[in-house]
């Protein structure tokens, strides 16, 4: 499907989505509360079949956080980028780890790096950082590392 067709289709699925310009793929912005249901539809819908979550990350915009999901269909070869704006002080979003299993690890990474809480995640623990890092989120823009080699 081309981006235009996707736009029509996605609006059909969820009327509240908005679209963002930029990038080669279609950027869809959804409300965090609607995300889980929308994700399930994205995967199961016959015309969409986004079965491959190839990138899951978060961007800290200083005022808010944005979850970014890159989805591709291995059968239909089209891709879409789904974004969800989160509150910076209490970021929470539903997990999609049972829809796309790869999200389990990626969400754990985002959890420790950005402090986003994934609701109903099966095993939300620190994956990369050592114990005792809870609460400090290194990838946020305001995080200062006391030992910074580069600044000498």
């Amino acid at each position: 499907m081309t981006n235009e067709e996707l736009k029509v289709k996605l609006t059909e699925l969820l009327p509240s989505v908005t679209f963002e310009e930029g990038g080669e793929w279609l950027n869809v912005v959804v409300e965090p509360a609607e995300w889980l249901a929308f994700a399930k539809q994205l995967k199961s819908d016959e015309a969409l079949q986004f079965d491959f979550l190839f990138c899951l990350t978060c961007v800290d915009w200083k005022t808010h956080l944005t979850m970014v999901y890159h989805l591709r269909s291995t059968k239909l070869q089209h891709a879409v980028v789904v974004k969800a704006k989160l509150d910076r002080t209490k970021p929470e979003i539903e997990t999609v780890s049972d829809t796309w299993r790869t999200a389990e690890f990626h969400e754990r990474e985002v959890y420790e790096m950005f402090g986003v809480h994934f609701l109903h995640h099966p095993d939300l623990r620190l994956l990369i950082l050592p114990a005792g890092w809870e609460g400090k989120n290194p990838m946020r823009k305001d995080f200062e590392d006391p030992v910074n080699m580069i600044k000498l």
Partner: protein
Amino acid sequence: MFIKDYIKDIASALKSLATGMKMTGYYFTHHKEIITEQYPDNRDTLVLAERFKGEVVMPHDDNNEHACTGCTSCELACPNGSIKIITKFDVDAETGKRKKAIDTWIYHLDLCTMCGLCVEACPTNAIKMAPTFEHSVFDRNKLVKKLNEDGSKVRAGVE
């Protein structure tokens, strides 16, 4: 035929094992195939590629002159801050103008990742990568080097 398959299995298994042993046996008896180098012994004959990025050096000519003007573009290009250039102001004897010049070119070999961006960035080709690799020392401070030699100055004609 259970028994037939059984024997066939054993025969093919033994054959596959024998093939492997034949190959290792070949190498056991053919010492000409040995490819290892005896490193400290072959130091004299060891040839490194001329592009090998071992460390940053600043070539000086016979008059103890180099081509570095102290423009700090290498310092800016370095991704991890392993170059530090301290500049001073030279007073030109003839015109009396104050001119920015290089004082010390400090190179942190311990931080360098040998990416070669500083050499790329240098407008006067004052620095280059040298094909050396035996950098190990007991004292980490020895890896912080001053590249411009004492009393050296900028080669005439380099701006």
